[in-house]
């Protein structure tokens, strides 16, 4: 439950191209950390190194250390599949399994991890859907396909699916960018509730969103197109948006570039 992430000296490559260079940071448990920065600065790539999803991209490669409490995710003998069971992820576009019902979507991760009794599954599915603020909307249509829900409901279904396996960390890659403002608000409220139980890292292009939901904000930037992305600064969200210590951060959040 809710572990600390400690990254040191992390480089991420696509083939021979260095996409993210020398990142070190600490993410506290039971907090929300937002990653902001211009397109192509490597924030999504970096996010995907935190659950070893980066390496499923052809040519994807990572150097450095990511400690989850005391366990190095990139240590020898660590199975990426086991890492992904501890670090859940929600994607930019809602991606419930279209061939599964609402219920089966939530139970999908549990069925991978082991066998449960029907009653146990029922309980976890309900708890997860309640946790994702979706239960009241779908309790009468659990057997219907997940793809029949609205976009915002689908995204909350994906969150329910991710939290059903009780991960230590929840990664969110621009979870609201495909949603309307009302659905976005629902997800933002949800993030505020989920941080009581999980360590949350969220990538967002929307700076107001970062300001609204996060405790800490990390600003990423790249020197030029084709150059690797770097972490410029990580600080309390309030400080980043009022009095950042680096000029580039101030330029970005005040809209002078990016």
């Amino acid at each position, binding site marked *: 439950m809710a572990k600390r992430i400690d990254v040191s000296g992390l480089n991420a490559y696509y083939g021979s191209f260095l996409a993210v260079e020398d990142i070190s940071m600490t993410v506290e448990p039971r907090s929300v950390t937002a990653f902001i920065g211009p397109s192509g600065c490597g924030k999504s790539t970096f996010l995907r190194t935190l659950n070893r*999803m980066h390496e499923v991209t052809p040519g994807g490669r990572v150097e450095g250390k990511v400690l989850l409490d005391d366990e190095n995710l990139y240590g020898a003998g660590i199975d990426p599949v086991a890492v*992904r*069971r501890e670090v859940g992820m929600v*994607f930019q*576009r809602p*991606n419930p*399994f279209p061939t*599964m*019902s609402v219920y089966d979507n939530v139970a999908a991760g549990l069925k991978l991890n082991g066998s449960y009794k029907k009653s146990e599954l029922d309980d976890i599915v309900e708890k997860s859907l309640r946790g994702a603020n979706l239960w009241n909307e779908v309790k009468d249509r659990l057997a219907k396909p997940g793809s029949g829900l609205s976009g915002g409901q689908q995204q909350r279904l994906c969150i329910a*699916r991710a939290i059903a396996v009780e991960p230590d960390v929840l990664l969110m890659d621009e979870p609201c960018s495909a949603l309307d403002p009302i659905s976005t608000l629902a997800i933002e409220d949800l993030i505020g509730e989920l941080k009581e139980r999980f360590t949350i890292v969220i990538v967002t292009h929307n700076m107001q969103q970062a300001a609204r939901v996060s405790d800490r904000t990390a600003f990423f930037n790249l020197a030029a197109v084709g150059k690797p992305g770097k972490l410029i600064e990580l600080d309390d969200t309030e400080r980043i948006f009022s009095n950042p210590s680096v000029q580039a951060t101030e330029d970005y959040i005040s809209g002078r570039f990016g």
Partner: protein
Amino acid sequence: MDISVKNDTAPPTPLPAPARRGSSARGATRPGDRIFLALSRGSGIFLLVLMAAIAVFLSLRAASAIGKDEANFFTTFEWNPTGDPPAFGIAVLAFGTVVSSVIALAIAVPVSVGIALFLTHYAPRRLRGPIAYVIDLLAAVPSIVYGLWGALVLVPHLGGLYAWLDDYLGWTGVFEWNGGAPRALFTVGILLAIMILPIITNVSREIFRQVPRTHEEAALALGATRWEVVRMAVLPYGRSGVISASMLGLGRALGETMAVAMVLSPTFDIEASLLDPGGGTFAQNIASKFNEATTDGRDALIASGLVLFVITLLVNGTARLIIERRKEFSGANA
């Protein structure tokens, strides 16, 4: 006054018609559109007329043959349309056709799906092209060549497999082997499986390639292994496509003629064992009897062809039903 009356009754001068191209909103009045519409509509109607003509031809000749048949057309184990009295029935042919095709599907579908999954999800990128090319080549080999290969290579080498099946599964009766030449329905099934493998593989591969990356990533992010990704995201998404592919293959297996004729020792009996020579299929029976048949004999063969036609329609209809029933979950609305 006089003038005004005249003006009132005078026909209004028609306005000059505006020079417009394709004045109708339907857009079908331009010569090009009209010709194209006629051509495409004609092609559609032609297809229906052709199907109807085939059905009528088959039905008429079949009706005349069945009218002369003294035995029960559906249950008789005999083919003697010129005898006195004429007696022939399709029981053996229907059994042989369906059984050999089902064996072919049972072998070909798992192998094809396996190849398709390997090509789309497991094989190193540089191997994918060459393997796909070899499979396309397999599809281009004429069926007579498969028949030759089956008769000269497959049949002499199946003895070992049949002895093994007899040892372990002989007790079922279905896999009992008396040691005769393996020119049996099971051999036909194996050969047909190889023949329908390419089409099922190619269609399945196309389907698996279209599985959205986001679905696979969803499974991966839940901590799925490669096989679990395939099971959670790829196979369910490709299910209806694999069924369609199998039906295409089944259609080919049901109608295959020369290759079957070359590896089967036809008899008009139903053998309890699939490994013992004997039996026959519709297409094989027509091909081997047509040349020497009299008019009545040909009508009898045409009657059997009509039955094959109906079986094929039923198979396709069933496949559509299966696909239709699961439409809600097909992923088409994702």
